[in-house]
């Protein structure tokens, strides 16, 4: 068998191959930059198809020439290891770089450099990029929905109160923490709801149909989280119970909710649930949605908590029993505190999924952020603004969800190191 001897760059011919390689790579880069930014084709003398892939050929040849193992140059070694370990990798690297050069500048132009920020009507957007004026004008609606402007301080203060309470729970001595938590879970929701809905104490009544925007996203997800937690805990305990009637009804309940999409559950709360109530009873739309989402999420929460209960060593149960503790005392004092700590990341993930599910409440006519964008883009004065609206909503949701997922990942890491 004859092997074709080909030129292989190594440490000895480094001095000659390196400059040639770098020159070829930069040729490729310059070609693609000129092409995408200045519409100028460096290799126009070549046939069209070859000219199209010319930068790739240049770049690949260049990268081949600088692929020298143990060259002695730290930077070169690092580049080779991370971007250029084989021909396949080199071509992938080039493709990614070329795609970035070709697509990132137009995106940035649309997003920032060509975008319009100043003005208050659609006609002010003239430069061809994104029309952020749209978001600016509708910002209030995106955050508060149709809530009356003069009353918006109520939503703000409800949320500030929540943040203060949560913040305080980190600092108060552990003796009072329990009471604070009980207040937060059982009392605060009603204070907050009353503050926002009004009707008493000289506050103007605001019907739930007017609630909306980002604040509704937070209201729905916060309430559903707080309410689904105890139900999920009971369901998890029920599923692990020795009593068959309780176990099977818990399993049935959990699997029923986990088996159907949320949208059908919301449909159910909208059209089927009123049929099950005595004639003439009217339950507010938002309350119905909250019940539906709570039950739905409780089933998922139950499975998360069950994971924690299962992960706990059996000795903990036995030790508690040997101290003469009953079922409830054993679970609330020994088992659950440890089990819940194990599944904090899982709970955070459930909450994340809950936040991402809230836009679905549009099926019953409640408009949170995504729903408000849908409404705004159909406004005759603002037609054609769909892209800006969705990009804005996506960005807001992304920031919230990304922060939360990062937080849960950190928790996971922290907890896992503690266990080792």
């Amino acid at each position: 068998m004859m092997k074709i001897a080909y030129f292989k760059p190594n440490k000895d011919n480094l001095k000659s191959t390196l400059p040639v390689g770098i020159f070829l790579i930069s040729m490729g880069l310059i070609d693609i930059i000129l092409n995408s930014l200045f519409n100028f084709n460096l290799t126009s003398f070549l046939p069209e198809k070859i000219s199209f892939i010319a930068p790739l050929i240049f770049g690949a040849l260049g990268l081949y020439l600088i692929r020298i193992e143990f060259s002695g140059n730290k930077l070169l070694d690092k580049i080779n290891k991370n971007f250029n370990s084989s021909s396949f990798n080199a071509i992938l690297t080039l493709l990614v770089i070329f795609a970035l050069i070709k697509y990132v500048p137009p995106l940035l132009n649309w997003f920032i450099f060509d975008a319009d920020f100043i003005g208050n009507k659609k006609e002010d957007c003239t430069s061809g990029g994104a029309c952020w004026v749209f978001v600016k004008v509708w910002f209030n609606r995106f955050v508060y929905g149709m809530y009356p402007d003069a009353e918006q301080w109520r939503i703000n203060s409800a949320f500030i109160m929540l943040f203060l309470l949560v913040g305080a729970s980190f600092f108060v001595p552990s003796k009072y923490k329990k009471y604070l938590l009980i207040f937060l879970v059982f009392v605060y929701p009603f204070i907050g709801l009353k503050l926002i809905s009004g009707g008493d104490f000289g506050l103007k009544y605001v019907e739930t149909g007017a609630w909306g925007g980002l604040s509704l996203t937070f209201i729905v997800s916060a309430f559903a989280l707080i309410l689904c937690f105890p139900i999920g805990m009971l369901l998890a305990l029920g599923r692990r119970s020795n009593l068959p009637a309780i176990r099977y009804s818990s399993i049935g309940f959990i699997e029923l909710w986990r088996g159907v999409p949320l949208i059908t559950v919301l449909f159910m709360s909208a059209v089927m649930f009123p049929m099950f109530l005595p004639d003439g009873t009217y339950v507010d739309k938002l309350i119905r949605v909250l019940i539906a989402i709570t039950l739905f999420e409780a089933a998922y929460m139950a499975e998360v908590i069950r994971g924690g209960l299962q992960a706990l060593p059996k000795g903990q149960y036995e030790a508690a029993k040997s101290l003469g503790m009953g079922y409830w005392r054993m679970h609330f004092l020994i088992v659950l505190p440890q089990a819940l700590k194990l599944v904090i990341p899982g709970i955070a993930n459930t909450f994340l999924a809950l936040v991402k599910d809230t836009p679905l409440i549009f099926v019953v006519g409640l408009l949170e952020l995504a729903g408000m964008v849908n409404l705004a883009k159909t406004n005759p004065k603002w037609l054609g603004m769909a892209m800006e609206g969705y990009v804005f909503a996506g960005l807001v949701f992304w920031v919230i969800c990304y922060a939360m997922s990062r937080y849960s990942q950190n928790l996971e890491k922290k907890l896992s190191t503690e266990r080792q």
Partner: protein
Amino acid sequence: MNFKNFKFDLSNKNKNLIPQVLTVLFILLLVIYFTINAQNNMGNRGISFGFGFLSQESSFDITFSLIDYDGSHSYARAFLVGLLNTILVSVIGIFFATILGVTVGISRLSQNYLIAKTAEWYVEIFRNIPLILQIFFWYFAALRALPLTIDSINFYDISFLNVKGWYVPKFLWTNFSLFLYSIIFAIIIVIFFLRYAKKQRDEFGKQFPTFYISLAILFILPTLTFLIGGVSLTFEIPELTQLSKTVYVYKGGVSIIPELIALALALSMYTATFIAENVRAGILGVSKGQKEAAASIGLTKGQILKLVVMPQALRIIIPPTTNQYLNLTKNSSLAAAIAYPDIVLVFAGTALMQTGRAIEIISITMLTYLSLSLSISVFMNWYNKKMAIREK
């Protein structure tokens, strides 16, 4: 002592019985209460519970259907259309989500810094934006930006993309059934061959190039039907026709509606991020010692991947990925938001509006999804049992 024990048991029995009886009673009372209310309500509105309406004429049209359907068909047929549309978008979504997810998952482990980072950012971006928003984005923002019919994007003169949808050639078969049988037959032969090859390998250590041989069987048999079986295939390419001075449409071929494109795109891109994480976790989950041990007994790189790494990685990857497939199928119900005629829109939407039979229709819809989920979880349990490490 005996007496004490007896007493303890008795009290324990009562202790166990009371909560159970209470639970059952509570559930029963709730059901009875709801039933009575529902009966009253339905009586007031002059409707009676029953599924007879399913055979009535539906008298509404559906924009996209895989089977013959128009307003003269029954509600049951409309349900079937919706179900098939749900299955269609789920299958398409699962197919692309798997390809994309596996690619991204492997890319995240690439040595190449740029590739790994790109894959990571893909996952971080698309996982953290609500699916419904992505569907809205593709449907209302991205696909609406496509050109009008007259200046469609042209793919090699056989398929055209414009704001009305994507027009692709239609396959016109003659003797299609023979072709189908040949494929089924080829698959059966391949299965037998693989079994035989595995037996030979296990017993005598003989290695066959199984992949190439099965590929050849799968390719040659259907080709033979073309050559001697009288099977033929022609394409009907969509053509631009002018209806009036300014109205153009594509006639012929198959048109894929933008709702389907947007939904499939969003579903597969969203689910792919989760599958990518599963794939990554699965490959990372195979310990390095396994690969080193395999290399030390002289297996080639391909063999290591095929015989040692993949079987173990798949054991980690498949259960959560099946879960993601199930999620994708359930998430396809978001179709209702952009009016893709899936089961929720057609049945729980239009049919419910027309008949007003909330309880029956919502129950059927939920039961459909539920049976889908349960059958998949039964399959998963079976698979987990089969794949569980058999300790000797």
